[in-house]
């Protein structure tokens, strides 16, 4: 976060390329084609929204990009590595260092304070104990939660929890931020607050953002590109002309 990623990755080579991506699974007798031959490319530094109704396969695509799931066939290439070819151990390292994730239900660990939640990925990454405290503090300050460091998630509002989740997602300085319905559990005011932060990370830090949502209005307001999915298939891919690029200048820096 403190350092800006390499300029060559921003608005240059593709960050994500999925080719004929399929994810099928059986549920009893029926074969469910959650993702069925999706081919898409996301450029480095792009902010892309995956849109679709529930069951359209948008979350499944996101899980495949996140390395949480493996494709039945096809390939997902992120930063020149085919995730389908990585071992479980390598996928874990990929999730740890390359990807930051936020979820609709925040997914903070309830028994840990915010500082401990944010520190957790650094434990897996074996960051020096001495440095971790300062980094966690810095990350929480960035999302405006420095005063809430030692609170547990249950003591916080939804918006605060999602901000903490953002801080955690960014702590290992990933190039890719994946958000699964990040505002789904928030009121519109808090949702806007979170989305502004996501946009700031995209524009200031040059992070590639892929966001899953079913709200077209939200997608049109923040994403540079809208990708539509239905029944596991890609049904639309368009540049978003209405995106307000100047929003940052109006709101000032975080």
């Amino acid at each position, binding site marked *: 976060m403190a350092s800006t990623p390499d300029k060559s990755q921003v608005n240059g080579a593709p960050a994500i390329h999925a080719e004929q991506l399929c994810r099928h699974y059986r549920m009893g007798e029926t074969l469910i084609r959650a993702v069925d031959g999706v081919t898409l490319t996301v450029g480095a530094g792009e902010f892309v929204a995956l849109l679709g109704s529930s069951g359209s396969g948008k979350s499944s695509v996101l*899980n495949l990009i*996140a390395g*949480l*799931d493996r494709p039945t066939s096809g390939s997902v290439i992120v930063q020149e590595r085919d995730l389908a070819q990585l071992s*479980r*151990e390598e996928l*874990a*390292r990929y*999730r*740890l*260092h390359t990807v930051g*994730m936020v*979820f609709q*239900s925040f*997914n*903070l*660990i*309830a*028994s*840990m304070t915010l500082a401990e939640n944010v520190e*957790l*990925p650094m*434990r*897996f*990454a*074996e960051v020096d*104990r001495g440095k971790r405290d300062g980094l966690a503090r810095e990350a929480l300050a960035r999302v405006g939660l420095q005063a809430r460091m030692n609170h547990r998630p249950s003591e916080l509002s939804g918006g605060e929890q999602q901000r903490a989740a953002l801080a*955690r*997602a960014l702590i*290992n300085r990933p190039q890719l931020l994946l958000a699964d319905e990040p505002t789904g559990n928030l009121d519109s005011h808090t949702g806007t607050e979170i989305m502004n932060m996501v946009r700031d990370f995209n524009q200031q830090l040059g992070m590639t953002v892929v966001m899953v949502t079913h709200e077209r209005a939200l997608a049109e307001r923040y994403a540079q590109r809208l990708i539509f999915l239905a029944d596991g298939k890609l049904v639309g891919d368009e540049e978003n002309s209405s995106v307000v690029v100047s929003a940052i200048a109006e709101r000032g820096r975080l």
Partner: protein
Amino acid sequence: MKLPDLTELAMRNLRESLLRNSLTTIGISVGVASLVAMLSLGIGLQQLASRRLMKSGLFDTVVVTSRRDLRNFNREEERNGPAPGESRILDEPTRQEIERLPNVLEANPDIRFITELRFEDKPHLTTIAALPASGKSNDAFETMPGHFFSSETAPEAILQKTFAEELLGKTPKLGLDETNVKELAAPLLGKELTMRYAQREAAKSSSAGQSLVGAAYSVVSREQKLKIIGVADLDPESMRGPTRARVFLPLKLAESLHVMQPTDLREISRSAGDQPVYSSVNVRVKNPSHIQSVEDAVKKMGFNTFSILDASKSIQQFFKVLDVFLGIFGSLALAVAFIGIVNTLVMAILERRREIGIMKAIGASDSDVKKLFFAEAGAMGILGGVVGVALGWAIGQAINLGTNVYLKSQSFPPEHFWSVPWWLVAFALLFSFLVSLAAGLYPAGRAARLDPVQALRYE
């Protein structure tokens, strides 16, 4: 993930469901405690038995006999060895030769004869044996009323309890408490016994040219006054069987009496002059571990040997078997604890399904998750082990104390039959740790394999 982080997270998780994890840990403690209690009882009993055997004086003793007198225990040797008539005799020079062998402390002739003792004008027939000065360390004389021989040549006698009873005309009644040895000793100590015996007197070789010098000796009837100086409760020769004596004399005194020995008749044609011939010699070695080498050396000289070593081997074997049995019973409780750990951790996986999913989503590898569950199992194991060892030690102390109170009420000396050596503590801790890790094997593997997408799907 690094070890300090693992430990920290594991301890935090254990604290989260404190009651359940405490109960599981207590289960481990009880298992370890029962194991420690059982094994330390086995070890303590074994040490007690060895201490007793050591004090009996037979543990470091080799009995040497001439092949002419006693059959050897080893039939093979008997068949292949020299015929009894040709084998060596056990005389004084031979005794000295044995005494000069390496690792031999002393070699004393075993003087033992049956004769008549008069006490208050009544005759009593019994077996009398001679004791060397080193016999003083025998367990039987430790708490004896009276004292050990004042010198090697003093005309003194120590009685075994049963003989003291005979002298006083008391017969032990079956089923009743045994007569108190102090009461027996009181009227006897300081009293005099008259021993009548047959002395073997070498004939003066007056007639020159006689070829069979040793053959000429006469037997003279003698009397020796003896002062009673002690009454032994325990039998110092309890290992000897039917030939054990009930009255003991100092060795040098017994030698000087030249009492007619059973072997004398047979050695008529061989014994030279005054040199005594012994039916057996008791060899004391420096250390029980030298028994075998001394036995071999003496056998090479052409004598039969016998030691308690063979008997002690079977005793050691018995205790090994006992230890194994006690260990198995002790481990049963630990096996129950093992199942408890598995249960607790499997429950924890169900409860923390989502948490495991989150950890994987933010970058935890399979091995991170596995190690975390191992660390939790291991921490419970170490904690349970420490508490268990303390508990086992306390149980042992309590039983030891209780038994000694009982022994005291029965006027027996206290015994220390409970022993928790440091290696048992280390073993118990390690064992408890390993058992816990083994118990964590299945749950940890299951947690590591958990599919993060599935785990995160449900609230």
